[in-house]
């Protein structure tokens, strides 16, 4: 694996392998595939929900399912995930349910985040997933600090941090990578290089030969991997996780892929790129490629695939029905959790508001 040549396992025909398959059981292969398909189905359904005006802004991860799911699959039980807003597959792989996800998207009272954040800003302490924020790149120093603490406390945790190609321009990336390198911390950085930061193409983002090569500036290894090759992603991340746990320090993994859709439901990507470009990339669709391999490997077939899609589509629909029935969070959650204990000035503001709303009810 190198920081300039692209590491691949699936050969051009998606049937043979360039090298040995990672030693996973058939169930594990199929498990990764299943979550990738679930992610695709879920993303599509959410775009639909947005069009119906039932949820706010949504950004699909279509085309990047292999990176999110296979990378997360390479983690072990004690490990932590510091995701960004475009890796629903990683969340599903780590055990987040579609109901939980939808509760966040609806911002309902059932949301672990109490309906306080924009869609796709998840977080689950129970599942060892940090809380996502919008400012690009800010999660990286958190991931690094967490890994630093783990090293100080000799804990077993390895940290997996996702971010995009655009994030590499931000200070969070720079300082996080630098500190991780100095202290050889147990963290694996996965850059989803989907070629664009909204409308800004990679060539206007950075002139570096690859994203992976940036690791040299921080004294550790970078790996450039085919991001639509689930097996390659798994193998690269797995190796990095094992090295991190063995005290051999961080790794930067660049998953080369493409954002099939617009940046978000607010974006119109036809303004800045040609359909043809997307069409070319879609020929390398991570799900289709992995499916071809599984079929060739003789552990999957088209019928079971159709069943799977149907099953997941129904499951998403059920989850939507459940989640959309949950009411809005209570008004007083506007004021709780700003601090551990509500200080006097916030109690006053809360009481003001509740009194005001009460008086309006009376008025009606």
């Amino acid at each position: 694996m190198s920081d300039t040549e692209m590491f691949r396992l699936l050969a051009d025909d998606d049937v043979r392998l360039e090298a040995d398959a990672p030693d996973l059981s058939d169930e594990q292969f199929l498990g990764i595939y299943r979550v990738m398909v679930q992610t695709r189905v879920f993303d599509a359904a959410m775009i639909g929900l947005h069009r119906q005006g039932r949820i706010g802004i949504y950004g699909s991860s279509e085309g990047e399912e292999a990176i999110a799911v296979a990378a997360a699959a390479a983690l072990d039980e004690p490990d932590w995930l510091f995701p960004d807003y475009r890796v629903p597959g990683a969340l599903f792989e780590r055990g987040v349910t579609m109901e939980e996800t939808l509760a966040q998207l609806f911002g309902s009272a059932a949301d672990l985040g109490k309906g306080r954040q924009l869609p796709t800003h998840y977080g689950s302490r129970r599942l060892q997933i940090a809380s996502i924020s919008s400012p690009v790149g800010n999660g990286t120093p958190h991931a690094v600090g967490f890994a630093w603490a783990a090293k100080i406390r000799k804990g077993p945790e390895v940290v997996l941090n996702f971010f995009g190609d655009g994030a590499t321009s931000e200070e969070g990336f720079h300082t996080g990578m630098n500190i991780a390198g100095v202290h050889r911390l147990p963290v694996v950085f996965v850059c989803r290089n989907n070629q664009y930061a909204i409308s800004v193409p990679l060539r206007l983002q950075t002139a570096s030969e690859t994203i992976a090569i940036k690791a040299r500036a921080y004294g550790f290894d970078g790996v450039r991997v085919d991001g639509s090759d689930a097996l390659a992603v798994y193998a690269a991340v797995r190796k990095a996780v094992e090295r991190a746990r063995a005290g051999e320090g961080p790794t930067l993994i660049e998953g080369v892929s493409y954002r099939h859709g617009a940046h978000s439901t607010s974006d119109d990507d036809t303004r800045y790129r040609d359909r043809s470009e997307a069409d070319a990339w879609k020929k390398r669709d991570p799900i289709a490629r992995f499916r071809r391999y599984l079929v060739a490997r003789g552990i999957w077939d088209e019928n079971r695939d159709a069943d799977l899609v149907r099953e997941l589509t129904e499951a998403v629909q059920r989850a939507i029905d459940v989640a959309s029935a949950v009411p809005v969070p209570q008004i007083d959650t506007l004021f709780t959790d700003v601090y551990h204990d509500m200080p006097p000035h916030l109690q006053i503001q809360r009481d003001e508001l509740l009194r005001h709303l009460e008086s309006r009810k009376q008025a009606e």
Partner: protein
Amino acid sequence: MIDALNDALHVGMRANDNVVVLGEDVGRLGGVFRVTAGLFDEFGEDRVLDTPLTETGIVGSAIGMALYGLRPVAEIQFADFVFPAFDQIVNELAKYRYRSGNQFECPVLMRMPVGGGIGGGHYHSQSPEAYFAHTAGLKVVIPSNPYDAKGLLLAALEDPDPVVFLEPKKLYRTTHAEVPEGHYTVPIGSAAAVREGSDLTLLCYGAMVPVCGKVAASAAGEGIDIEVIDLRSILPLDLDVVSASVAKTGRVVIVHEAPRTCGFGAELAASIVERSFWDLDAPIARVTGFDTPFPYRLEDAYMPTLERILEGVRTTARA
């Protein structure tokens, strides 16, 4: 308001070759809110620059461009994302003329969408004007309508000092009005009484101005005659207009979306007490966002609504 801003940028760039626009997605895309639409095609990639994803880099390189003699217009995609550039703004941009003994000046114009009302949650809704108001060396303006938006933006483009230009995104698509063609300016540092009144002074800016207009209308129905003042500039502040109004009404309600504690309303109240204490007939009330992060699902409860402002008005008028 988007059209007026876009128009102003076209006018300003045609009038002065030194004006360049830079930021994330401002070029080929024309900005995520389309405020810079058409500029890339008309002025080309030498004057409309898509930057990497780095606010420090946007403001930092804009400073360098200004030192060269250009007039950079830096777009911060959302005001919520200005904080990575805060050091460049507070420690460099705001202090550059002063520390260099006036050898250099940095007329960098920073445009950024502010405020709530679009379901943006924590990171697409904040109103950071108070941070800038506390930073000597900056000017801070915020329009409430298309006419002022164009006039203030053109004024800012000619201003010798750094200007933070806050664009209430709630008004981007909700306010439409024909604005005069070509060049005109609205002076920085001058407030406007958008409604005259004798009983109470309502101080507001940005997206709260139309709301306060409605408040005045329904208060009139209750016999409270409100003077609504649109500050337009936060720094420098037009205290003369404010004091004159307070001298007349003796009662003041201040409205803003930003959290209350140490928000700009605090400065308004403190300044009024210093200048107009003996004119005051009642406590000054602040109707503002709460001291919490900006919420998502409960946004409507967070915003200063017509009803909340009206309650503050009634209390103050009766006090």
